[in-house]
């Protein structure tokens, strides 16, 4: 900001729309290059088949009669990524809906960041599922022959409902701001006028919007619980493998998703505050409030995790124990213990600090914790899926190593999500303009 130029809070919010620096172009260019690399990897997979990934059937013997049992994992990092993105999407609109339902005015400042996160994350989850299909050209069969007895269809239904709900919710909460932008940014007036769809800004109109949003928020909260429960049912209802068939899965996944989502919202809020110097808008108090929620759900998650491990270790069935041994002492032990200690233990310690007094709250350190937590949760989903698949009863233990192509495609969702998010903040204010109007 130039000196001597008086900045109002509203201008400060709109700076993401009006100012574009060199760093921005460099960042976007890098993302575009990475996206091109992802598109090439995806093209390779589409033309040659899933053989380019590290996934294999349970029994996938070569042409000779042996080795006895060549085992692979039929699902891998694509499904992990799917669960991860669903988890990220989770908190977004849920935080926003809770803010509205419980009238938490203080947190309204992060509500829109959260909503957009959901909107960006859900298509990435859908994309991850499409990557995983052997025949993406037949994906429309899900609509033609879809069977509601399959958990896969529950996913499809819950996610599309959630996505449509999110779009409507975001649009309605954004409409007043769009109308205002039409007046504020005359160069884009036509675009915003079209998008505002004849919004007048009268008191009755505002009242109607608020009412609709309240009811929509009420509907979205149960949907958000459903969405991640059905993701857990994809695994939790399967008797075939060790460590999956368990009642705890739905709760476990929902809580895990809330940890992931709240951590992501914290990361975003901190990044925006640092990027646009919004210390007065996103105050330490707001950040501490989010970290308080994050700490509490994290404690519940760790508790559920310990309960699950104890159930398995104490008297699990042989197939459960085989998977657990593989994780605790086998080839996955380095991943598992690093994830448990560095990925969950250290963030938990950081988040527990403010318990001993407000002055112990460190926004930057908590930001690091929120990033570590999301990485750890990605790995956690991986260790839920792959070890169980690599240890099929009746067969020997297999090996799964993701290929470079597979990793490129998986990472592609991250580049795309970042690009979409950037596109949004260049077109719309990321903080509700009502916040500064009081």
């Amino acid at each position, binding site marked *: 900001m130039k000196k001597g130029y008086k900045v109002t809070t509203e201008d400060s919010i709109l700076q993401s729309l009006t100012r574009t620096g060199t760093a921005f172009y460099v960042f976007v260019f890098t993302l575009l290059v990475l996206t091109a690399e992802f598109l090439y990897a995806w093209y390779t997979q589409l033309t040659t088949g899933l*053989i380019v990934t590290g996934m294999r059937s349970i029994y996938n013997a070569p042409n000779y009669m042996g080795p006895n049992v060549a085992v692979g994992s039929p699902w891998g990092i694509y499904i992990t990524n799917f669960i991860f993105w669903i988890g990220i999407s989770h908190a977004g609109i849920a935080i926003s809906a809770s803010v509205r339902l419980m009238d938490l005015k203080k947190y309204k400042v992060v509500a829109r960041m959260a909503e957009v996160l959901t909107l960006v994350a859900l298509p990435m989850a859908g994309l991850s599922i499409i990557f995983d299909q052997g*025949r993406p050209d*037949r994906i429309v069969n899900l609509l033609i022959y879809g069977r509601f007895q399959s958990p*896969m269809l529950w996913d499809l239904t819950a996610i599309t409902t959630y996505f449509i709900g999110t779009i409507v919710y975001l649009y309605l909460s954004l409409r007043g701001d769009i109308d205002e932008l039409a007046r504020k940014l005359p160069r884009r007036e036509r675009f915003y006028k079209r998008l505002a769809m004849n919004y007048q800004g009268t008191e009755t109109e505002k009242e109607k919007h608020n009412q609709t949003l309240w009811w929509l928020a009420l509907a979205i909260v149960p949907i958000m619980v459903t969405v991640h429960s059905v993701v857990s049912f994809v695994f939790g209802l399967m008797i*075939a493998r060790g460590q999956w068939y368990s009642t705890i899965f739905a709760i476990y996944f929902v809580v895990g998703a809330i940890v992931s989502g709240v951590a992501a919202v914290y990361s975003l809020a901190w990044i925006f505050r640092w990027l646009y110097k919004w210390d007065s808008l996103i105050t330490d108090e707001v950040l501490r409030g989010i970290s308080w929620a994050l700490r509490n759900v994290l404690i519940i998650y760790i508790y559920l995790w310990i309960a699950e491990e104890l159930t398995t270790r104490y008297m699990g069935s042989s197939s459960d124990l085989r998977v657990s041994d593989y994780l605790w002492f086998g080839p996955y032990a380095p991943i598992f213990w690093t994830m448990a200690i560095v990925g969950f233990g250290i963030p938990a310690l950081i988040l527990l600090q403010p318990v001993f007094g407000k002055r112990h709250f460190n926004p930057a350190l908590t930001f690091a914790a929120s990033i570590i937590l999301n990485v750890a949760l990605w790995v956690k989903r991986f260790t839920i899926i792959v070890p169980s698949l690599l240890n099929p009863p009746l067969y020997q233990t297999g090996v799964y190593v993701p290929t470079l192509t597979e990793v490129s495609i998986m990472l592609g969702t991250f580049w795309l999500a970042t690009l979409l998010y950037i596109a949004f903040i260049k077109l719309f204010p990321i903080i509700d303009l009502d916040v500064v109007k009081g």
Partner: protein
Amino acid sequence: MKLTMVIDLSRCLGCWSCAVGCKLENNEPIGIWWNRILTNGGREPDTPSGSYPDVKMTYLPINCQHCDNAPCIKVCPVAALRKRNDGIVFLDWGRCIGCRYCLIACPYGIPAFNWSTPVQSPDSSQFQIGNPAVPVRPVGVSEKCTFCFQRVDVGNLTPKCIEVCPAGARFFGDLDDPNSQVSQLIQTKPTVRLREELGTEPSVYYVPPRNPTIKVQVSQT
């Protein structure tokens, strides 16, 4: 009509004839076996467990169990897996979207996936090998044992694995008919089904091996 298979494990030689016969009949590409013979024993194929001289080894030929309560049918999102009235579970690879949920849900690890365009050896585009009634699968779909329904449907033919078994270890027939060979066997011999505790109600019965221990004469010197 309930088509059932009985496999007598004390007769099984572990010769893979059934697997090879199946592979030819059903045009299975390289890497995919609808029928496999697992060794119940050591870590390597055809090796016994235990330490010399107390060693133990049996074979476990395993193909689709054609469950009455099949997990793969339950989870298939597009109903590509269906059960016929005679009990055969088959996979419609013209409809399969390749999500591999059947591979995940099957407790027996049966369905196999075409990760790449199937390669036949010898090349089936030049020679007609196998049964022309079984179409070659496209890339990106699952496939599994069908109890050779192309053979069962045309007449009183049995699946190929029954026909080629040199030890006469495999039997096939209608369990609803009390005079059929399989009904007689199940009535007279003790039979088990794989992972029966899961409640999948498989249609493949195993007669347990009588004497899995290989007696080794040790000459004392």
